[in-house]
């Protein structure tokens, strides 16, 4: 197809990915890479490079709104991010050791897990009443604004477990070119028991940093194509800013359902292609 059509198509896909990413705490990269690879037949390394750019964009774009509103917990974010960064380093060194179709297969399985996790998040869980000792020592507890007025304080649990989950998320982030927002949200939502909006906002904040760790390496290897990233970046930026503004108005149950279904379909595609070795170089 011609560049113009390709560009426009990519832009639209990125826009939608940006909105979904902003609303669920995922970077949108997890949806973007499979679509680029399976629908647009883009080489997986290019797709991963583009998706890393998308993640950095979404992270920065959404954080503008979330920081302003006060949902992001910077201390928790930073603490968890150290785990993710160390993981990302290990993941980056694994990239060249694994064949593309293995990476594709792993990706598919991660997608399935993400779909399950996205669906599993429940907003009606009882808020935690006690914080983990580490959380108190590091002053990780916080408050977030309620829709109408006032602030709601929250507790933070299972700090070490969350860190380990983040470490694994970091490895996957580097290996697959995603922000691994799903795992990060898991760490915050299920392990630490943070409120949905706080987990989403904090996850969105840190995934850009994790992506930045891998981007340097990808850039040096020529995996970041300017033309691809151009349409992806602009689409994701507009999408994620739109999404961030919508967070308090959208019925997140429906959103999560749609997102999970999309991810499951993509996962099946990726695993299928990985098994057949269609993407082997």
């Amino acid at each position, binding site marked *: 197809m011609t*560049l113009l059509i390709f560009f426009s198509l990519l832009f639209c896909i990125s826009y939608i990915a940006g909105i979904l990413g902003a609303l669920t705490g995922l970077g949108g990269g997890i949806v973007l890479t499979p679509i680029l690879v399976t629908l647009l037949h883009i*080489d997986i390394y290019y797709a991963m490079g583009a998706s890393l750019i998308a993640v950095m964009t979404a992270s920065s774009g959404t954080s503008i709104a979330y920081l*302003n509103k006060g949902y992001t917990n910077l201390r928790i974010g930073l603490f968890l991010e150290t785990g993710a960064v160390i993981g990302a380093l290990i993941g980056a060194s694994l990239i060249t050791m694994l064949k593309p179709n293995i990476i594709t297969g792993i990706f598919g399985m991660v997608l399935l897990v993400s779909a399950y996790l996205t669906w599993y998040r429940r907003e009606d869980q009882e808020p935690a009443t006690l914080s983990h000792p580490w959380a108190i020592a*590091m002053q990780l507890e916080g408050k977030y604004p309620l829709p109408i007025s006032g602030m709601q304080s929250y507790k933070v649990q299972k700090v070490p477990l969350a860190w380990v989950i983040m470490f694994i998320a970091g490895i996957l982030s580097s290996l697959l070119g995603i922000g691994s927002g799903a795992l990060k949200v898991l760490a915050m939502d299920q392990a630490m028991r943070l409120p949905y909006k706080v987990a989403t906002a904090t996850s969105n904040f840190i995934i850009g940093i994790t992506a930045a760790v891998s981007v340097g390496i990808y850039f040096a290897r020529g995996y970041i194509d300017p033309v691809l990233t151009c349409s992806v970046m602009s689409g994701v930026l507009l999408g994620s800013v739109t999404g961030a503004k919508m967070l308090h108005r959208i019925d997140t149950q429906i959103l999560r359902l749609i997102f999970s279904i999309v991810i499951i379909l993509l996962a099946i595609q990726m695993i299928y292609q990985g098994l057949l070795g269609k993407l082997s170089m």
Partner: protein
Amino acid sequence: MRLVISRLLFIGMLISFILIVTGGLLYLSQHSNDLVDYQHVHKQAILLSSLTTVLSGAIALSPISIIQLGLVVLFFIQILRIILMAWFFAKEKSLLFCGMSLFILFIILTTPFWHV
């Protein structure tokens, strides 16, 4: 702290966006009827990836270099926000978090130079 970082992100993203879109539109206007092939990595892509090449190319108004400059700005925003956090945590005397910020900063700045 959060409001300062938010402002930084806003300005930085604006600059990055303008650069990338300008470069992109310029490129599109010249190449819109090219056929695309992204099925394999192009070998010459690796030649475009040093910072000096990007800067000199952007000054020469090459669309590709302008886009790449935008990407570089995007990358630097991430670094700047970590520096900001280190600064604010130092002012708050939270040495642990200042240290974490600096650690992450160190990793991000040095990894492109590690030979993996």
